[in-house]
């Protein structure tokens, strides 16, 4: 339960500036997701907040208290690592209890908190096992359990699901979301490069790019009103269609963006004409790839099933209120 404030936070390794001045407020009890491409500095930023890395410049405050020079264990945080970071020679119970024995809690209290957390995560039958005797998903739950028993002000997750397979990832994602609801008011910061994870989990998303904040907002805000070409292309699956050249110039911009679900196939005076070059049928949706002679084929989402053979010429019309226009610098024209 902490409000976290980052003021012009910077981090440099030697001469290499990795975090280039970040201003961000994370509210009490918020689920904040850092998302961005590989190498943009997500993990570094999380490690600055955790105290595992020294802050080069700027201020970091927890509930108004400056914590720049506070060691990690004094910040009231718990961290879940991508690699789980379990102690390989300790049973699950000891893994979860190891960090607490110091905290002057009584033996009964420790036992109770560990079993409570284990029950919450449904790993109470695994307490006597070693980490190597667990599956990847179970290990990750132990790591989360270890964080829970510490009863922290802030939870930090660094790509906790990236070592799991797709099905398990969805299931564990759900559990983390449930966890956030059940632990009312705990602030969580979650790093991922997977924008679907970001969209589904976050109260607010912070898109990072090359050590800078690109945009902060709710998933819907980012989806509907991206603040830059980068965010528009990064958020959403499939990617937003981008048109350059003549079709963009016709709308008075350098790059024209339109999402796949905002294009209608029509024969009545279509704006664009093209041929179907590929189709992906996902069961619920059908994605058509239409080449209109402007670089990449346009992806058009088509609900239901309407078999259109390859090579068919189709007319396309975008919904005008959903057009995104960007100038040469990649900034939106509103």
């Amino acid at each position: 339960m902490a409000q976290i404030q980052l003021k012009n936070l910077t981090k440099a390794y030697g001469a290499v500036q990795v975090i280039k001045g970040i201003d961000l407020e994370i509210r009490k009890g918020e689920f904040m997701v850092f998302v961005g491409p590989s190498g943009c500095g997500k993990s570094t930023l999380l490690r600055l907040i955790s105290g595992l890395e020294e802050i080069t410049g700027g201020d970091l405050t927890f509930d108004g208290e400056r914590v720049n020079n506070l060691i990690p264990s004094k910040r009231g945080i718990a961290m879940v690592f991508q690699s789980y970071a379990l102690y390989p020679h300790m049973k699950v119970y000891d893994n979860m209890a190891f960090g607490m024995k110091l905290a002057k809690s009584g033996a009964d209290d420790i036992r109770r908190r560990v079993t409570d957390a284990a029950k919450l995560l449904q790993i109470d039958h695994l307490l006597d096992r070693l980490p190597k005797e667990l599956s990847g998903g179970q290990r990750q739950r132990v790591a989360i359990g270890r964080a829970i028993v510490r009863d922290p002000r802030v939870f930090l997750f660094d790509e906790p699901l990236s070592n799991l397979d797709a099905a398990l990832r969805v299931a564990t994602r759900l559990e983390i979301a449930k966890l956030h609801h059940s632990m009312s008011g705990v602030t969580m910061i979650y790093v991922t490069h997977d924008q679907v994870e970001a969209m589904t989990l976050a109260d607010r998303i912070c898109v990072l790019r090359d050590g800078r904040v690109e945009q902060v907002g709710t998933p819907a805000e980012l989806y509907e009103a991206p603040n830059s070409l980068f965010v528009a292309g990064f958020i959403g699956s499939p990617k937003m269609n981008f048109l350059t050249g003549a079709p963009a110039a016709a709308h008075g911009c350098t790059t024209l963006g339109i999402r796949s679900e905002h294009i209608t196939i029509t024969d009545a005076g279509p704006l664009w004409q093209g041929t179907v070059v590929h189709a992906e049928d996902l069961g619920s949706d059908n994605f058509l790839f239409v080449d209109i002679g402007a670089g990449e084929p346009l992806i058009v989402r088509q609900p239901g099933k309407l078999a259109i053979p390859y090579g068919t010429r189709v007319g396309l019309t975008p919904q005008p209120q959903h057009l995104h226009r960007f100038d040469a610098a990649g900034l939106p024209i509103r």
Partner: protein
Amino acid sequence: MPNPDHGPSLQQQRARSAFWFLAPMLIALFCVAAWPLLRTIWFSFTDTTLSNLYGGKWIGFDNYLSIRTLESGRVIYRGTLVDPAWWNAVWNTVRFSVLSVTIETVLGLMVALVLNAEFKGRGLVRAAILIPWAIPTIVSAKMWAWMLNDQFGILNDIMLRLGLITEKIAWTASTETAMTAVLIVDVWKTTPFMALLCLAGLQMIPRDIYEAARVDGIHPVKVFFKVTLPLVRPALMVAVIFRMLDALRIFDLIYVLTPNSAATKTMSIISRENLIDFDKFAYGSAQSTLLFAIIAIFVSLYIWLGKVDLSGGGK
């Protein structure tokens, strides 16, 4: 049935080619290790002398222990097993091995912990620390012999000036200090090797669990005893075995540093003495055989007690 009458199965073919790859090494090992060992054991049961290597006659266990009753009724025991010089050598060897290996393990682990941390110039320090180990024992023993020299040695000089001692100590000559001198040189020489083995073990430990411990605020001393030590233990056990094998057959250092001191004569030294200097070839062979047996027992005990897995992780 995977193998109808179409020649050997894949498994058999693999075993056969493996045998041919191993054959040269097996032959070499037999020539340089097994054959001399068997010869030595054979000699120990004969009355072979240096001047007549091939004319020895079988005399049974007499080199180890022979009991004769004289006409007067007196019983005479002879042989290595009742030789006080031998038991002195056994005691010296064991004392030297336990002390040197213990000190080297503790120091080596400490050095390894330092080298495992990240700091500027770590690569250079890692290389530099190996220098004592890379110097041939004869050279380092001679070098230390000079430094420990009672009249001109730098060690006595420094300690005198610092007021730690009031008169010069004859490090290598005096029976009280000879073992200490040998230990000092051996520790100086072999700690780097120990450190290197420990470092290899430390580097197998994932870094992230130390970060987890840092976030959890666990005291570094507790982290060392509860996390580092248990995880580095397998590597440490193997390192200790290597060093123990080495220490139990120590020869060169003592032969150069304190050649004739009864306080430091080890099993290897005394068997060589009998084999060559005293022309009791068969007697020396018996002592060599005992040395081999003692080392074998020591190491088996250690492996059994420590449940060391030498098979490479197993599972």
